[in-house]
């Protein structure tokens, strides 16, 4: 895989390293220092930092502005972009704006339904879906035009990513869905949090058999559990997340004050196990409001120091 954009993440992957990405969730206010603080904690332990886009449909400081802050800090952001809130005009406009600041990674998502967020009565847009956003970014970069046909020069140099959930139903369509996203332009994939190893490995095997792991760099999604309450919540309440009973038992099986450490241990074991899997090209660590633990996880999982790439 040759790198084609200025993306450091792309270069890390192209050089054959296992990539590490993590993410920061912007605050529900206009205090930009929150982003800087979170990013400072993790910056030396990751190759790029995702900024979530109004995650779980809760209104937050915008992903693009937060990415610009990271860029001004000399860090490498991954602009998460959901199609829920903006039509194709606004989406393309934001891509151009991001590129104007040298942001060169984008993660194309459809986004959670607004039903789950802090504005359940909002109108949604969904003019495009995630696959169509992938196509759009690729078109802007490779063909140099917008959906409306207008020529774009210079072109936004984006390394293009998408999400995959190997655990959602119907399972049979999960690999074809990955194939579709790859065909639409995805170059890297960040997966949903993995707890059901068996199912993930089956998905990966089927993807390998179709040659998809050669076409897209799969970064395995890792989310450390803070306590048994979180494990139960993720199991029962978060759509599309598959937490097997043995995980809930394991976290709940240790005293309360040791559950966080057990969660970290589990995350490290998951990374070590998946490092051996052919087709896993790195890790996306989603430590939800627990960014301070990312350095420890990366270090203890043997992923530190990060490669120096210019």
């Amino acid at each position, binding site marked *: 895989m040759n790198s084609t954009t200025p993306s450091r993440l792309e270069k890390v992957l192209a050089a054959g390293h296992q990539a590490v990405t993590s993410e920061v969730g912007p605050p529900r206010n206009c205090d930009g220092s929150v982003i800087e603080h979170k990013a400072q904690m993790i910056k030396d332990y990751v190759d790029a930092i995702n900024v979530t886009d109004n995650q779980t449909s809760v209104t937050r400081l915008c992903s693009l502005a937060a990415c610009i802050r990271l860029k001004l800090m000399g860090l490498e952001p991954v602009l998460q972009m959901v199609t829920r809130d903006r039509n194709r005009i606004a989406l393309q406009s934001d891509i151009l704006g991001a590129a104007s600041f040298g942001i060169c990674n984008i993660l194309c998502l459809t986004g959670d339904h607004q039903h789950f967020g802090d504005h359940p009565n909002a109108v949604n847009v*969904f*003019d495009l879906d995630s*696959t*169509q956003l992938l196509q759009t970014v690729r078109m802007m970069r490779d063909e140099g035009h917008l959906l409306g046909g207008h020529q774009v020069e210079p072109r936004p140099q984006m390394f293009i990513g998408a999400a995959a*959930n190997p655990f*959602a*139903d119907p399972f049979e369509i999960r690999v074809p*869905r990955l194939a*579709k996203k790859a065909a639409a332009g995805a170059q890297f994939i960040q997966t949903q949090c993995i707890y059901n190893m068996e199912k993930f490995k089956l998905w990966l095997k089927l993807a390998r058999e179709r040659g998809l792991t050669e076409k897209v760099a799969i970064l395995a999604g890792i989310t450390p559990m803070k306590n048994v309450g979180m494990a139960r919540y993720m199991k029962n309440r978060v759509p599309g997340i598959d937490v097997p009973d043995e995980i809930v038992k394991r976290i709940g099986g240790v005293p309360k004050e040791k559950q966080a450490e057990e969660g970290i241990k589990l995350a490290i074991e998951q990374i070590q196990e998946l490092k051996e899997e052919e087709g896993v090209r790195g890790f996306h660590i989603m430590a939800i409001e627990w960014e301070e633990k990312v350095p420890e996880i990366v270090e203890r999982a043997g992923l530190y120091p990060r490669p120096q790439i210019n």
Partner: protein
Amino acid sequence: MIKAVPKPIEEIIDLVKNFHKVLIVGCDGCVTVCEAGGLKEVQILAASLRLYFTQAKQRLDIDEATLTRQCDREYLGQLKDRIDAYDAVVSLACGCGVQFLAERYQDKIVYPGVNTCFMGVDLERGVYAERCQACGKCILASTGGICPIARCSKRMLNGPCGGSEKGKCEVNPDIDCGWQLIFDRLKILGQLDRFEQPVEPKNWASSRDGGPRKIVREDLRL
């Protein structure tokens, strides 16, 4: 067909309470089928209002009429000799009927008596479900006869999303995942290969996004 539900009686009482003579007009079309605004519902509403205002010791005359269709000028014309006698009209037709009635009788106050909901089907008596959003460019041929615009909460054309569990939508376990239905049907039809080709962004100009729509069928015009 268009599906509607009756407005709460309190809302209608509030609309008409300051008048002396009100006409309730039903429609024999869609709202009769979904039992929201036909002859029977006109009678029930009129009786309920009469009872309410009698008990409240308030004088309000209520008359009834039901037209074959309120979305048709010819039938609206049937009211022309009597509508002047009323202070206001409550239409139990869908939003189209209410507006067409108001358009035909410009100086008459016309209120809606139902909430118009969607285009749907009768699953069973009293259970109606949305099936079409009238986007103006039907894609059912490529989706196994199941519309992702009407039946996927995110309107995804390349779905399913990652929130589908056991065939149900993440928004509500009572909603079938539209893409699970599409997948199951394409499988039965042996057309799963259709799924992998990315579907281009949709042209929404034929939908409401193109502005209020109008159809002109030259072949039908007189």
